[in-house]
């Protein structure tokens, strides 16, 4: 360890891509965000379960909070574009704080596995109490002819019992 497995320029480009992707979500530019995804995107958030320390798993192998692909993410965005997405009327204010970005070579030559921490601040309406979501992410980004694209988002919530009435935002 200590040696940087991905060259500095690439690592820096990946980090900037991660920040711009988060910015698109926070600025509610959902079509721009969709354009940052590959066609074969997998978008998953496994469910966390509180178990004893020696248990085989604490992230459910079968249960998901998000279990999306390109088609279902399009459905989510189309929904937000209607006048009837009541959960986001008026919209939540979100801020994605993406830190500890570490890029490693992925399984394919143009792909990188990117680990990051993500803290999402979400406030709704005039409520003085925000929801806070802390997540660890293991994403895959791909270098394409058109620039960087997100090929996989895998994000695990650090809380098992989520303290929010719904999850009408993207992670």
């Amino acid at each position: 360890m200590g040696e940087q497995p991905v060259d500095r320029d690439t690592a820096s480009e990946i980090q900037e891509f991660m920040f711009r992707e988060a910015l698109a979500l926070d600025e509610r530019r959902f079509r721009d965000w969709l354009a940052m995804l590959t066609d074969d995107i997998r978008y998953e958030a496994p469910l966390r379960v509180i178990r004893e320390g020696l248990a085989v798993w604490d992230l459910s192998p079968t249960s998901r909070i998000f279990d999306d692909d390109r088609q279902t993410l399009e459905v989510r965005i189309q929904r937000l574009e209607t006048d009837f997405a009541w959960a986001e009327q008026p919209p939540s204010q979100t801020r994605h704080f993406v830190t500890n970005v570490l890029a490693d070579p992925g399984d394919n030559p143009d792909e990188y596995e990117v680990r990051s921490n993500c803290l999402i601040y979400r406030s709704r309406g005039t409520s003085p109490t925000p929801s806070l979501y802390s997540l660890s992410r293991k994403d895959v980004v791909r270098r394409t002819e058109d620039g960087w694209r997100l090929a996989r988002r895998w994000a695990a919530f650090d809380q098992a019992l989520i303290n929010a009435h719904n999850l009408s935002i993207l992670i």
Partner: protein
Amino acid sequence: MNTKPESQSLAAWVEETREGIDSGRFPVRAFNDQAVYDLEQERLFSKTWCFLAHESEIPHPGDYVTRYIGNNNLIVARDEHGEIHANLNMCRHRGNVMCKAEMGNASHFRCSYHGWTYKNSGELVGVPYMKEGYEGRLKRKDWGLVGVRVDSYEGLVFGCLDPEAPPLDEYLGGFQFYLDLYLKHGLGGVEVHGPPDHWIADTDWKICTENFAGDGYHTPVAHQWGFHLGYFPSSGSTHSQGWAVSIPGKGHGIGLGHGPNFPPFGGFPDDLVAEMKQSLSPEQVEVFSRTRTAVGSVFPNLSFLMQPFSLEPGEIGVRFVTMRLYHPVGPGRMEMYSWCLVPKNASQEYKKEAYRAYTLAFGQAGTFEQDDFENWTKVTQAAGMTMVRDVDFPYIMGMDSAPDPEFPGPGHAVVPYVNDTNFRNLWSRWADYLAGEV
């Protein structure tokens, strides 16, 4: 203005509420009030059969989950002989919690304070310094974990704190006919797809129970996006078609929404439909084959929803089933448990598809779920306002609906699907418990 509840005794308020339900009025206050919440803990959750777990969550000896009845935390475990027990999650010695995990597998539970050890059935087997300290005065058989009555129907495990309450079968009172719609999917029945989603919301558990007891009325508005984009196989104009069925005097209710030209058992794979025709009675087949959406509540806080959902606008898509438990954690506050049930005998591919449809529609990030909770938290907020303490809601839809004499199932079946009959039955039962009449 009516009489002010704060100047009235709670008992008088409950009595007035009971009378109001018969004439189609229900007080807003019931949905967010400390005194009502306390009375529910005392008189309702201590007497009803409450859902604990689906058997497929704890398939093997030693498997356990921790769940609640009212504010009581319970360990629901399958013992070494395969029998399921529910015991209070509290050491009999000094009250420490026995099990801090939500699920796991253990043959024994050992208290981390003084080391008392119990079998997963609740029997006390180990007491450190038994001879030296207790000098033969402690009988292990007297100090097992505090147990709760357990009974089950088609894989649904219920518990009851009241040893005098009638058995589960009588409690369900014929609603089993409708539960089969969610549980007898093929000859193998159903299983959970995995652990439940759970999240916490400033919403009163009763709003959810009511909604799922058959609120077809909210769908074309609250979930308009699904109709608008064609992801939902009915339209606003035909959405009222179908039956609302309640079990009088029991509180359970179900809405069976129909769709014109909807194919029989549409959205289920063919081989499963063939099996369902064997697992269900002819009366059930007659009622359920036409059902597009089935949304039902087992009194007090367990609900089910089955509907087809399609990612291709205009197509029927795939059926998914969700089971949900509304665990009250305070006035106007609840913890939601939401499962996806899948047919045990279906192909992995169908199970996966059904689960994805569930996640997209009704998991905590589900596109239908999101809007429900947005509405329900606002209703709860409103119910906490001082000005609405004397205000009632109208529950007068279908006040004069006569039961459909042709309907082949048990209970009180009325048309249209958009109807308050189920809700009057639900609140009337709730009020009976609060009045101490059950």
